[in-house]
């Protein structure tokens, strides 16, 4: 362990320069989020992730945001265990009928002001799973969505761009 720790000191961090925030996301946010809400949220956001029916691909890449290369926490963004502690719900998947109520209840448990970010192609409109008896549709069919991050799954860099737009949006207000 000593060697591993010493090496970490001498080799410098793996953490990479962040990408600039996604322009399309900034535009979507400017239209969607009220100024007052943005001011209240400030520059540090607590994120609660909700899998509402995904194949788990999006979760894997959301996980990657916490690794040394992306290091999400340096931006003041962190994942929390309860919706009651959250400012942002990061929702993946087509919303299944079996998860609809759980998603609604999670949303209602999140204090205002709150943002909902829909992650992945399925979260937009149900994607490849739309039209099934088991699927309601995109996240927007169940709770209001402020920002979409596309991709199947979106890469961690893409996710980071979207989430940074959230911070920029807050600061610009």
């Amino acid at each position, binding site marked *: *362990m000593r060697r591993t720790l010493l090496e970490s000191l001498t080799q410098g961090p793996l953490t990479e320069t962040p990408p600039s925030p996604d322009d399309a996301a900034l535009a979507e946010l400017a239209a969607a989020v009220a100024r007052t809400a943005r001011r209240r949220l400030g520059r540090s956001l607590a994120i609660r992730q909700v899998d509402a029916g995904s194949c788990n691909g999006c979760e894997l890449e959301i996980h990657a945001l916490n690794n040394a290369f992306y290091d999400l926490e340096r931006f003041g963004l962190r994942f929390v265990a309860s919706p009651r502690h959250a400012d942002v719900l990061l929702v993946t998947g087509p919303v299944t009928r079996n998860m609809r109520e759980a998603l609604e209840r999670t949303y209602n448990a999140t204090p205002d002001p709150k943002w909902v970010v829909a992650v992945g192609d399925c979260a937009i409109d149900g994607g490849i799973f739309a039209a099934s008896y088991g699927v309601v549709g995109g996240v927007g069919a169940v709770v209001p969505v402020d920002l979409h991050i596309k991709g199947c*799954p979106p890469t961690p860099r893409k996710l980071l761009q979207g989430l940074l737009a959230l911070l920029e949006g807050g600061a610009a207000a």
Partner: protein
Amino acid sequence: MPTFIASIAGKRVDDRRPWPRLIVTTDTWQSVAHALADGRATLLGLWGDAGASCAAHMAIIAADATEIAVVSLECPEETFPSVGAVHPPAIRLERAIHSLYGLTPVGAPDLRPWLDLGFWDVQYPLGAHTPAPAVRPAYAFLPAEGESLHQIPVGPVHAGIIEPGHFRFTASGEAVVRLEARLGYVHKGIESLMAGATIERAARLAARTSGDSTVAYGIAFAHAVEAALEVEAPRRARYLRALMAELERLANHFGDIGAICNDASFSIMHAHCGVLRELVLRAADACFGHRLMMDRVVPGGVAVDLGPDGAAALSDLLKRLRQRFPRLVELYDNTASLQDRTVSTGIVRADLARQFGAPGYVGRASGRNFDARKAPGYAPYDELDFAVPVLTAGDVNARIWVRIREVEQSLLLVEQLVARLPNGPIATALDADSGEGLGFVEGFRGDVLVSVRLAGGRVVRCHLRDPSWFQWPLLEAAIEGNIVADFPLCNKSFNCSYSGHDL
């Protein structure tokens, strides 16, 4: 003397490859169920069919893993003799058949709904497809009786970045007396979407059954389709598929080893394993243009070729992994406080692992020497040198060590695959033909089974069986007598799929 599978009497279905499907009588069906209970064969899958071809199908593999067969029982009355009545691993599969198809397993010990949580508009969505009743009885969890017991409901929304499912714990103080999982929250109706889909669309659905095993599902589906259409993927494609499969195994095993240690609050392992996982995903992206390699395996071959840059990226990856991983293994091995949490925690007994045909590292940590890459085996693994690590302790520690040893084997495999990569085309064209096929592939989590029936180049019926079906019930057994606080550790050491199970 003929083997057990060769001795099953039944009408062999034409156009079924590579293993036979037999239409059997009720008596033979029951004798096969008893053979499973006796351990002469292992259950690989149990699923239904509705409408004109209303039937129950059971896939089995011989005890020595050399032969596979599917036995089918036609059920015009929409009933079939329960397999779960004599062989408990079949119980949840039968509950799912009942909920999805409306077929009734007669004599089944448990007929509570499974996957259907009471939120759908329809009942028996893959069968009669009738409107759901307005009022449904509340789901009754299995009881645990005794003084001072308390229940802890957990989920479907969990505290971490993980998939949803409900766990009902009954505890006596800190010790878990009973755990019962209730799953189905991410049921997307994949099998209904498969029906009538083009092969291309069906392959995309198969690749999204469980995102962490997208390559394994891609290969299993491709094998099934290629068997049905009597097409062989080119040799180069087979090698590239195996290369992707081993990268997928490496990425997931690194993620798991780190995450298990993290659930024992040893976060330095998590941080370093996370770096290794990221290195693998970046190499996968550089080689195949997608970090998880989704849609890179297609029926007939693969969608992208490996260029010289890709091969260089892989040799660089191997170098870096070999530099860093052994030190992490040493760290794990030398940290007594960490081992204190993992050794003797969450034991899966060897007899249960054998009975359930426990797939993957769950079985191999409990003495079950089974790996679909070895037996029944498939190309190109028959041309490659690798070992199947098997341990017997059956605890969290053993499941970590099996993964560590498998990482080492996968590194050897990647090296061999790159060095011996044959030249040639990467895909074969498919005809719009008909037929039935079975695919059976070892993913990182365990064996994935895909059964497909094609007509005129479209999918008539496709069933996908995730390894988790035979792992979830063992998690319930493993946690018994352990403290509630060790559940995350046990659960992560299994890392069962929710989406693959829920379909």
